[in-house]
């Protein structure tokens, strides 16, 4: 049954459409607002939005169907999504989810009969240092336990508006445990811009070059090179060069705050307590490449940061640090707009992020051309990580040599690590590059550590034998996640969790990843159910090869890492689960009877094979 309208729809739609204007790049932002008010996107709303933006209905439906936080069927008025990272699971998330469902007489992913509440899983919400975590109608809940869930169930039953819930439920703390060059000193708004203006754009770029700063989002591309490519780029559209009056194409600066990699939460802390530094870095970048417009792409899970970010932007405009003629420099105009995502890990990939900024589904583009020449709306665009911009601000202020003196020759500066899992003190740790895993584990209070997942599911898992390795691009590159597992953990569960993560987050564009991540998940389910054999391990390796070599983007090409790492480094983790048989059919006869058991309410011996 398709829900088509709600009596109030025009009343709801008019202000939303008026607020966002008629640029189709606003499509995702419009749909977010509709979902907020209606708890789904009604079919009639899709028609109205299509008419308003002058796009086809399938365009709107394509976006509404792509993002996890949008739905074309109603969710509960209270929609609770448990963060499903392995760290949440280790803190008892599965049991808590079941506990809440039992309390509310609910089945997971089913809306209650009265439409009041629904409960489900969602990918990591970036609160691994204070989990188990969840989102209720998009707002983060942290440190969940049975007591809190009792309270939450009561608040839902009494239909108390979220605004009246006890604030402690929503409390998010920074948990900064170790500071260095970046976090050790507050950013004086304007200080970096002043220095950049005094030096001039060319000299500022040369300081960036001297700093040897490499991108903090994972790939480690040298930031100065990216900025200079963008500066040098000539934008083309349908063969004709687009120029503004100065003879320069319009350029864009984009800050990637999608932070979707499970186990990463350092950008959350930067945006919460160091937003000035991040905006300052974006402004310096704009000055260097000649951009007049910037975007911060904020993952939907972090919408609770939006209000404060808008306030910081407002303050900076008032202080002359954004807007026209920044700090009195004639002709230097730059402003920043925040765009919210809606639950899609793939939107952290830079070309998918740009698609999403343009209001489309986040499917990675074909490259070449790359965003530095053909980015947002086909114009030269720099996409950098939040931390990269924070570093850039520091470099503009203190110089490239100062920065390059820290860390190692190939990995200069410091790195923020988001540390969670089996440790006493989870949180943010800032270290100069080159620090050993062992040092970090000691500082964080790890008890009998056995394995560490570096840089999240798409990164690598290392075993206790490798704890003397270093955090650095030349040894263990990382975007920041650092999840610790002690001796008692079953690492199969970790790989299993990650296989589900990738299957859920594949955008579906290309065959190897759309199907391959599903096949991986099914095999891991089979092994987990006790039906796996040696053949299944061989199949995982073969799938890993296909994913790595044939995928369209980094999501697919890294989606097999957890399985391949676990099989290589911890073979017994799998072997313990396997049947002695060489082959076991994927079809589980007893499992197939489960539906019948549910319908008849039977679970006795005769209802099983």
């Amino acid at each position, binding site marked *: 049954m398709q829900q088509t309208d709600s009596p109030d729809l025009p009343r709801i739609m008019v202000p939303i459409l008026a607020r966002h204007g008629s640029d189709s790049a606003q499509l995702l932002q419009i749909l977010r607002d509709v979902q907020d008010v209606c708890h789904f996107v009604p079919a009639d709303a899709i028609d109205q939005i299509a008419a308003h933006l002058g796009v086809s209905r399938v365009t709107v439906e394509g976006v509404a169907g792509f993002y996890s936080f949008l739905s074309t069927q109603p969710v509960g008025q209270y929609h609770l999504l448990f963060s499903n990272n392995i760290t949440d699971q280790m803190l008892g998330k599965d049991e808590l989810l079941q506990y809440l469902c039992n309390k509310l007489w609910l089945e997971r992913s089913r809306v209650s009969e009265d439409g009041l509440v629904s409960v489900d899983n969602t990918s990591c919400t970036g609160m691994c240092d204070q989990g188990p975590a969840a989102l209720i109608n998009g707002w983060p809940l942290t440190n969940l336990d049975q007591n809190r869930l009792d309270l939450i169930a009561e608040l839902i039953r009494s239909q108390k508006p979220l605004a009246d819930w006890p604030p402690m439920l929503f409390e998010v703390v920074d948990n900064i445990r170790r500071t260095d060059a970046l976090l050790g000193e507050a950013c004086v708004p304007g200080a970096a811009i002043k220095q950049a203006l005094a030096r001039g754009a060319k000299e500022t770029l040369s300081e960036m070059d001297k700093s040897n700063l490499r991108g903090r989002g994972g790939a480690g591309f040298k930031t100065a090179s990216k900025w200079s490519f963008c500066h040098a780029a000539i934008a083309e559209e349908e063969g004709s060069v687009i120029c503004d009056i100065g003879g320069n194409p319009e350029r864009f600066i984009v800050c990637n705050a999608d932070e979707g990699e499970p186990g990463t939460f350092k950008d959350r802390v930067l945006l919460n307590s160091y937003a000035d530094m991040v905006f300052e870095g974006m402004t310096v970048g704009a000055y260097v490449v000649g951009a007049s417009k910037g975007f911060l792409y904020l993952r939907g899970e972090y919408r609770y940061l939006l209000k404060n970010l808008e306030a910081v932007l407002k303050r900076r405009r008032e202080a002359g640090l954004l807007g026209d003629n920044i700090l009195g420099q004639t002709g230097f105009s730059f402003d920043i707009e925040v765009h919210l995502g809606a639950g899609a890990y793939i939107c952290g990939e830079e070309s998918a992020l740009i698609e999403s900024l343009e209001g489309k589904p986040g499917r990675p583009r074909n490259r070449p051309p790359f965003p530095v020449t053909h980015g947002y709306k086909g114009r030269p665009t720099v996409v950098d990580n939040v931390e990269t911009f924070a570093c850039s601000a520091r470099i503009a202020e203190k110089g490239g040599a100062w920065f390059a003196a820290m860390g190692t020759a190939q990995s200069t500066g410091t790195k923020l690590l988001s540390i969670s899992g089996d440790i006493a003190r989870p949180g943010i740790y800032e270290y100069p590059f080159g620090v050993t895993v062992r040092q970090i584990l000691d500082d964080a209070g790890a008890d009998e550590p056995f394995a560490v997942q570096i840089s999240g599911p798409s990164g690598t898992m290392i075993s206790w034998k490798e704890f003397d390795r270093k955090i650095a691009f030349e040894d263990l590159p990382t975007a920041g996640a650092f999840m610790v597992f002690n001796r008692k953990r079953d690492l199969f569960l970790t790989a299993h969790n990650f296989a589900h993560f990738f299957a859920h987050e594949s955008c579906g564009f290309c065959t190897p990843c*759309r199907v391959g991540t599903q096949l991986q998940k099914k095999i891991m389910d089979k092994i987990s159910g006790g039906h796996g054999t040696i053949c299944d391990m061989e199949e995982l390796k073969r799938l890993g090869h296909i994913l790595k070599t044939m995928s369209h983007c980094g999501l697919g090409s890294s989606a097999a890492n957890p399985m391949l790492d676990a099989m290589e480094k911890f073979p017994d983790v799998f072997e313990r689960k396997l049947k002695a048989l060489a082959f076991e059919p994927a079809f589980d006869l007893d499992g197939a009877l489960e539906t019948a058991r549910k319908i008849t309410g039977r679970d006795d011996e005769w209802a099983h094979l």
Partner: protein
Amino acid sequence: MGAPMSKTITIDGKSIPFKDGQTIMDAAMAADVYIPHLCHNPEFKPHGSCKLCTVKVNGRNVASCTMPAVEGQQVLSDTLELNDERLSLTQMLFVEGNHICPSCEKSGNCQLQAVAYYLGMMSPHYNHFYPQREVDASHPDMLLDRNRCIYCELCVRASRDVDGKSVFGLSGRGIGSTLVVNSTSGLLGDTNLAATDKAAQVCPTGALLKKRQGFTVPIGQRIFDHRTIKDVQLGEEHE
């Protein structure tokens, strides 16, 4: 005077000329070199989603239908390894949908089936997903059987870029991707698709079929019953 020196790439050791703006696939097809492909159709803007056309360029895998040809590229295509990987991708396409060739009107004219023959596919290898997908017979002249859709977006591109109608689009994500049509009811019959539209002619599989034409050409006399997809597509290229 001789012709101006043209730029070349090599594919499997053979020197292939190309013009600026051509992709590796364009250059290959023009030179009578077949690279298996499904989502590519030279009449439309390249898409790059099926990945069957993957080739190795200077040691790295790329989709040949989207990768611009660049002077001096050393391309490997017809290798055991790549054909094996292409076979796996084809098998993936078979198991994620519901492709029951013996009962499909498109059998013999279907490019998915033909490519599977070409790559020597003897079994689906993977376990079938048996997804539940909707069949839409609401249109007077067309049948949309989503069970056979491989998300190549050829109908999407044709309708948007040639017919100017945007009858088709993709929605959903990942394995939940689904072909949607431009009507509030979600039914093809309520769109302005005409059987004469370009979009109605381009489906490589039996997902989007003309009604009442299924057996005008008997099985045994269809396009790929006697010729390989390689010969057919290279032939079309030189028409």
